[in-house]
């Protein structure tokens, strides 16, 4: 009985501590992630304002998809009915794989090749496949959508 009580007590205290720290850090983390979002759009678009993008002839689809560690926010930009480029602006993937999703790596191949010629990344199957699925979903949405510009 004693082991059960001890572990339960420790677990409850640990849970309480985590809740407190989570509440305290929630806002600063959100602020940091938002700044990061803007940074990660680099090289593709510099704003999410629909009108400004229309002036450049760019249409943006934002897809939220389940990745390996949580929801990913994938931005797919279209120009002249073709995929211009893709950026992952928010994710919870394993930290080492951020290099794949960083604006200067695998993610950059979108737009330079047709989407069905882009392979998933072998050591980050779930992550890269999620991005590919998100791009396909964006393409479907873009096709069904009426002209917005």
């Amino acid at each position, binding site marked *: 009985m*004693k*082991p059960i009580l*001890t*572990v339960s007590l*420790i*677990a409850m205290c*640990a849970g309480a*501590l*985590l809740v407190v*720290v*989570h509440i*305290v*850090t929630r806002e*600063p*983390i959100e602020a*940091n992630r938002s*700044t*990061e979002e803007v940074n990660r759009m680099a090289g593709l678009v510099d704003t999410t304002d629909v009108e400004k993008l229309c002036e450049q002839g760019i249409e943006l689809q934002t897809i939220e998809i389940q990745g390996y560690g949580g929801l990913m926010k994938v931005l797919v930009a279209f120009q002249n009915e073709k995929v211009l480029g893709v950026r992952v602006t928010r994710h919870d993937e*394993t*930290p*080492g794989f*951020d290099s794949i999703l960083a604006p200067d790596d695998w993610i950059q191949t979108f737009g330079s090749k047709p989407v069905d010629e882009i392979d998933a990344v072998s050591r980050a199957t779930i992550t890269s496949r999620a991005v590919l699925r998100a791009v396909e979903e964006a393409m479907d949405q873009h096709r069904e959508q009426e002209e917005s510009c």
Partner: protein
Amino acid sequence: MLRQVFAESFATRNVATVQLLGLCPLLAVSYSLENAIGLASASTFVLLASSLTISLFRKLIPKNIRLPCFVLIVATLTTVVVMLAQAYAWDLYIQVALFMQIIVTNCMILGHIENVAARQSVLVSMINASGTALGFSAALIVFGSVRQLLSEVMPLAAHPIGAFLIAGSLLALVNLYTKKD
């Protein structure tokens, strides 16, 4: 006696150069002094906090479930450190995210807890923990500096191969200097 505890944990039984524990993060982040200091601080926080907690309650944790309890406490503290880093040190966190998240698996923490914190008084445990943390940080800083300086002259040093070679050389030097026979 307390001075001896500190001297032992910092020098003669240095966790990185003598006990050879916690080498994974050491080798991984030592390419940059700034990142090395950041990770050393995070590990130190987890080590000190878990040492304090476990040594305070050491008589209340049943021996047969002590390991799950230790890991539970250290993992919670690791998550706390990660959340704090994400909130207040985002740029550092981005650099060392992976290694901050696996601080719980750092053998020096569990080694210290099992051998010292779970058996000794709070005072002895904290002094030993401080010595261990400082010893680890010192090793990290020395190693990081050497590696960063060498990588100016020898690009190999910046890669994992160079890290292992430098680590081996430094350990050999330490042994040369300290072994009497």
